[in-house]
C-alpha cells in the first residue's frame, strides 16, 4: 500500500533554518544541512527547502547548499525560492534535488509549469500555493484567493481554479499552504485541503498549521492529502519524526515503517 508522506519543511536564509508565524518574525533554529541529515536519519519521507529571502534579495538560490544536502541525504527533496527560469530549475536538479517548487513565479508566468514539466518531467514540478480564506466574494467561488510573496500580495485568482489550471499545465504535485493556518499549530485547514485533493488527480500535500500528530492523521483522512508538511512541531524539538510516525501507525494510517 502506498504510504502517506511526512515532509519536514526547512525555511532557509543564509544556510540557517528559520521559522516564523504567518511568514513573519522569523527566528534562527539551526544549520540547514545538519537539520536535514537529522530528519533523514529519523525517517522523514521527503524534505522541502525554501530559500526564503532569495526572491526578495533578487539573488539565485544557494546552489552550494543544495549540493551539500544532496550529499547528506538519499531521499527525495524539493527546493523552492529564487527560481526564475528553466536554467535555474536545471541547476537545482543537477545539484541533486528531486523536485522544484514554484509559487509566485508560476502565478506571474503559468507557462513555467508547462515548460518545466516538458523539460524535466511532471514529477519534478511542484506547485506551491498560499490561499487565504475570503468568504462571500463572487470572484472566488472556492472561498479562497491565492496570495503571493509570503501573503504580501493578493492575486485575484481563485484557489480551486488555479489548482486545476496547474494540473492541466503539467504540475506533478500541489502543496496547499494555508495562509490562515500557517504557524498557528491548530491543525491543517482540512476543508481547503480536501477541496483541492478531490478536484485534481495529482498528489496534494497539506501544509500550514501542524502542531501535533493527530493533525497529520486528520490531513490524511478528512483532508484526503497524500502527504503532509511539518515544521515548527519538530524544529522546536516538541515532537520527533519517530514519535509522529508511531502515533499515525496507531491511528491506522499507512506510514513507512522501515528505514
Amino acid at each position, binding site marked *: 500500500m*502506498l504510504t502517506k508522506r511526512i515532509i519536514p519543511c526547512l525555511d532557509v536564509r543564509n544556510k540557517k533554518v528559520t521559522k516564523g508565524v504567518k511568514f513573519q518574525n522569523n527566528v534562527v533554529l539551526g544549520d540547514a544541512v545538519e537539520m536535514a541529515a537529522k530528519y533523514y536519519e529519523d525517517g522523514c519521507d521527503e524534505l522541502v527547502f525554501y530559500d526564503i529571502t532569495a526572491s526578495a534579495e533578487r539573488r539565485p538560490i544557494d546552489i552550494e547548499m543544495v549540493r551539500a544536502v544532496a550529499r547528506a541525504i*538519499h531521499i527525495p527533496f524539493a527546493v523552492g525560492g529564487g527560481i526564475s527560469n528553466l536554467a535555474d530549475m536545471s541547476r537545482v536538479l543537477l545539484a541533486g534535488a528531486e523536485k522544484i517548487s514554484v509559487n509566485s513565479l508560476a502565478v506571474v508566468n503559468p507557462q513555467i509549469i508547462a515548460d518545466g514539466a516538458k523539460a524535466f*518531467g511532471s514529477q519534478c514540478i511542484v506547485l506551491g500555493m498560499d490561499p487565504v480564506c475570503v468568504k462571500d466574494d463572487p470572484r472566488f467561488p472556492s472561498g479562497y484567493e491565492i496570495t503571493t510573496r509570503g501573503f504580501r500580495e493578493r492575486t485575484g485568482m481563485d484557489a480551486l481554479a488555479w489548482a486545476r489550471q496547474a494540473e492541466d499545465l503539467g504540475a506533478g504535485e500541489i502543496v496547499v499552504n494555508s495562509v490562515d493556518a500557517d504557524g498557528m499549530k491548530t491543525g491543517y485547514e482540512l476543508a481547503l485541503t480536501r477541496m483541492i485533493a478531490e478536484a485534481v488527480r495529482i498528489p496534494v500535500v497539506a501544509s500550514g498549521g501542524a502542531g501535533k500528530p493527530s493533525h497529520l492523521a486528520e490531513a490524511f483522512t478528512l483532508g484526503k492529502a*497524500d502527504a503532509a508538511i511539518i515544521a515548527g512541531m519538530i524544529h522546536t524539538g516538541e515532537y520527533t519524526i519517530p514519535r509522529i510516525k508511531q502515533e499515525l501507525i496507531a491511528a491506522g494510517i499507512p506510514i513507512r515503517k522501515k*528505514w
Partner: protein
Amino acid sequence: MRKEARMIAIVDYKAGNLTSVKLAFEAIGAEAVVTDCPEVILQADRVVFPGVGAAGASMRHLSELKLIDVLRTVVAKGTPFLGICVGMQVLFDRSEEDGGTPTLGFIPGEVRLFKPSSSADKVPQIGWNAVKFRRPHPVFAGVEDETEFYFVHSYYPVAINPVDSVGMTDYAGVEFTSIVGRDNLVATQFHIEKSGRVGLKVFENFSRWGGQC
C-alpha cells in the same frame, strides 16, 4: 587488477538526471562513472541502467547513441546489470506508453498504464510503497520483507514468467513486479538511489555482486 575492472558504469542516455544515482554510489565509497561511451560500458565491471521519462524517448536515445547492441552484449556476457525505473521498463518486450513502444526484450513481459478505479489512487504513483519478496536475491540480502522504497511512475511492469519476479508491490488495484531478476540482470521499478539507507544497502550489495542468483 586494472582500474576499469572494478568500475561501475552508470549509463547516461539522456533519460533524466543521474546526480542522485552518482551521489548514492559515492556515499558507499564505490567508484562509478556516468557515461554514454560504448567502450566504457562494455569494459565496466558492473552496469547501472537508470532512467526517468517516457519509454519512446528512451528507446530513441538508446538507438541514437548506438547503445542497444552494447546493452545486449553486456547482458549476454554476464556483467552484473542493474536497471532502475524506466531502465527496468525498457528491459521488457513492449510498453503501452507513447501509443505502444517496442522495447529491448531482455525479459518476457510488458509495461502497462495504471488505470485506477478509485480517484484516491493518483497517477503517477508518488511515494513509498512496500515490496513483498517472492524469493531471495543477493542484491537484496539483508533487506526485510515489506520494506518500503520510493516510487515515481505511471506505468508498471508485468512479467510473463513468475520466476522472473523477485518482488511485488500493490498499487491502484494491481500487484505488479517491482523487482525483476534473471541471471546477471536485476531491475527495480522504484528509485534505489532515493530510498534512503535501505537503498544504499541495495547499491552496496550490487557493488559486490558477481551476477549469480
